[in-house]
Structure formats: C-alpha cells, structure tokens
C-alpha cells in the first residue's frame, strides 16, 4: 500500500489567514481576562497574641486600652483635691478651681488611643509608625491601676504589590522590651515582618496560668 502524504486539513489550520485570526482572538481574550489582584486585607498591623506564663494561648478578660506616645508635647492641666479623684484635662477648667481643686500645668508627650477597652481578646492588632524608629505602647487595664509599657524598635519601608493597589508601609521588627510589668510577664518576637498577611508577630506572656 502506498502511503500518500496528504494533510489537507492542516493546510486550512496552517494558513496565514487562520493564524492571523487566531492571534487576534487570542489577544482580545487575553486583554478581556485581565483582572485586579490587590490583597483583600490591606491594613498593615503588628499582631500581638496572648499567652499565659506557661505558653498556653489565652484570652484576656479584663478590658485593655492601648495608648501610644506621639512625637511632640502637649500641655495638660491636672486638678487635685484631697479625698477626690485627680482630674487630668487638656484644657483649663475654671469650675474645678472654684470647687476647691488645685491646678498644675505641665508639658507631657502627646499620645493617642489605638485600642479602646478591648475585652476577652486573644489577639491585638496594632498599627505601627511609618517614620519613627521606636513605638511606645502603654497597656492600661480596667481592674489594675498599674500599666505596662512596651517599646518596639523597627524599620519601615514602602511596599508596592501592584501599581493599581497603591503603596503600603511594611515594617521589620528589630527589638522589643517591656517595662512596668503590671500584668505582662514578658514579650517576644516570633515574626519580624509586619505586613497585611495577618501573621502573629509578637507573643505577650501574662502573669499566671490559665485554669
């Protein structure tokens, strides 16, 4: 049997006209399928997870307020009266003086509240400063008069995932320490890179053991 080399169907498929048509279809499909892939969670936070002194993950029932110190100072007015609670205000209050309070004026570091009365939480998500080398976080507890202060040393850098997603500011943790240990036993860094992926960055070990 003589085998003849016939590929008539391929002549159509391989024709320049067909090829050109396919190319344009391909280009149109490729353009029409382009999509945006920006991250859904784009808030960059340093994530603090709570543990007891033995390393068990816990929730902290007492409401926690986290305040951070800001650059610069502000004027505060402190009113004291024997047998009464001391009032600290950022403006002058003449009525308190008329009620017998004594007024003292001082310059203190500016601050702002980052987390307000968070209760029964296992994780804290706290933003970090873009241009400061150290962030100072003050932890105030509703049932404790004492406070904890955490100092975080870090680098910050801009990061662009895609031009259409905008610029984010990522951070790299360098060191962390805790003073005035009211409720916190110690802290440690577990993941130095702070971005929007939501990974745990710092472990906070509280005094005591969960029952």
């Amino acid at each position: 049997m003589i085998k003849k080399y016939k590929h008539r169907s391929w002549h159509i498929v391989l024709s320049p006209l067909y090829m050109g048509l396919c190319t344009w279809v391909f280009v149109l499909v490729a353009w029409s399928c382009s999509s945006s892939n920006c991250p859904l969670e784009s808030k960059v936070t340093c994530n603090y997870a709570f543990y007891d002194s033995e390393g068990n993950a816990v929730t902290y029932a007492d409401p926690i307020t986290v305040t951070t110190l800001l650059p610069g100072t502000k004027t505060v007015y402190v009113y004291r009266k024997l047998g009464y609670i001391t009032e600290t205000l950022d403006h002058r209050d003449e009525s308190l003086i008329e009620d017998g309070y004594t007024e003292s004026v001082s310059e203190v570091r500016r601050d702002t509240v980052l987390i307000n009365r968070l209760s029964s939480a296992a994780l804290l998500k706290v933003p970090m400063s873009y241009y400061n080398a150290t962030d100072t976080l003050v932890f105030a507890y509703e049932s404790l008069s004492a406070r904890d202060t955490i100092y975080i040393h870090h680098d910050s850098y801009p990061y662009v995932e895609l031009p259409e997603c905008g610029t984010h500011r990522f951070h790299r943790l360098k060191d962390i320490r805790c003073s005035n240990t009211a409720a916190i036993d110690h802290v440690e860094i577990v993941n130095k890179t702070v971005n929007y992926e939501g990974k745990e960055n710092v472990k906070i070990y509280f005094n005591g053991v969960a029952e």
Partner: protein
Amino acid sequence: MREKRMSRSISMVWRSSLLLLVLMFGMKATAQEETPQPTPYEPVSIEEPQMSFFQGFTLSADLLGVGQWLLTDYGTLEAGLRLNLKNTYFPVAELGMAHCDVYEPNTDITYKTDAPYLRVGFDMNLLKDKFQDNRLFVGLRYGFATYNFDIAGPAIVDPVWGGSEPFNKKGISATSHWLELALGVQVKIWKNFHMGWSIRYKRELSTSKNNYAKPYYIPGYGTTTNSSCWGGAYHLIFDLNWGKKKRGSIKLQTPPDVKPADAEAVESEDAETQETQSTPNNSNTQSTSNNPITPIK
C-alpha cells in the same frame, strides 16, 4: 473348463487393474507437470525518505512583542535562534530586550524597567510528514532575567504618628526564573520565510524578594498579577537550511510480467490445441485432452 474360465477372468481383472494403476499414475504425473507454480509475491517497496540529522538553523523575530512595545505600556524586542534536527526537534534560545513604563493614574504610581532576558528550551514538530514546510509544534522553555526597576509614588502620610516621605526608589534589583509551555504553528510564506504564532502558558518559579516592591513586570515573562499567566508570540522566521531535507523517492518495484496461473494454463492449452490441430496424429493428444485443469471462460 470352469477352472480355465476362472483363471481367464482373474487374469483379465489383474490386467485391467494394472492398466488402471498405470493410467492413474500417468494422469497424476501429467497433472503434476501441468500444475501452475504460484507466483512469488513481490511487494511494492517504498524507499524510505532520507533526511539528514542536521537541517540547519532558524532565525526568528517576535512581531507581537514589537507591536506591544509600540502600542502599550510594555513590550519586547526578541530574536530567536533554533537548531533544526531532522525537522522534528528544535533546540531554541531566545534573547530579548524588554521595556515597561507603566503609570497607574488611580494610585499615581510609576513602574519602569528596561532589561534583557533569555529563554532556552526546545520545540518538537508534531506533524507526521516531516518533509513539508509547515510545522505544528509544542515546546518547553526555561526563562531567566536579572534586572533593575524603578518605582515611584506619592508621599505616604502616617495617619497616627504623622509625617510623610516621598516614595521614589530607583535601581531595585531582582532576578526571576520561570517556565513556559508553548503550542504553535508555522507556515511557509515565501521561499525560506515562515510565519507562525504560538500561545504560551507561563509559570513563575521564583523572584528574588526586596523591601520595596514586588516586580510588576518581569522582562520576558510579563506582568506578575498572578503566579502564572498566558502569553503569545507572532514570529517571522527565516530558515537557513543548508543541510536541506531531501524527500526520498517512492520506488515502485513492479513485478516482472507475471500472469495469473489460470491464464498461463489457458495459454498453454491454447498452444497445445493449435499444435494438435496442426498435427492431428500427435501422440500427446490423448494426454492433453485429459488435462484436469479447466480454463475459466
């Protein structure tokens, strides 16, 4: 008297049986002589097409990349060199220069890069007829690019602690590796010129990390909105076939004038008939008339 009759009849039976035997042997011998021999089968042989292993070089240029360069924010100038081995296997190297200058108006971010890239791999021609000038191929590529890019955007204001800083990073270096699967066709346009398109599935293997940005555009790979992407190419190809393929000739080896066995028998009988007619007293007439082979009419 009776005994004589008996012996005569026995001798007659004996003679007749002997005559019958002689006749049978004679007929068998004649039949053996006259049986046509089977014609040995001589198949038509096709001489295998001859093709030298090395079929030359192929030079190609990607027109789609040039079009993208001219019409969009990014594109490539790319040339390829391919070896042609038996018109089936094509080891290939593609070297190109990529350009990207993207400005995103919604975020006011600019991304720029101009860098070379290299791909190496091979194509395989899937068509059965390797002698024809058209090709349908699948291929695999490994791509590599080491490049610098610039990225700039508006100043970022810290919403809590305050302060802002302009964002303009230049010369961020990166290295990327990727794989490509290609499927395409090529057709002969004129003499040694071919044209062809291919679609390519690209998968990013790795890209070095840096502190400032994920590369938006990898030279030779494309945009990095996903870890894999589709691409394409439209090639103008020039074949340098100095080891030009040679199609083997199909040699039809027809058998020598072999006629069917029956026809031969008919012929021989005809000849004998003619001979008999010419010499009616021929002694072979009886034996040929008893030929058991009957011609087909």
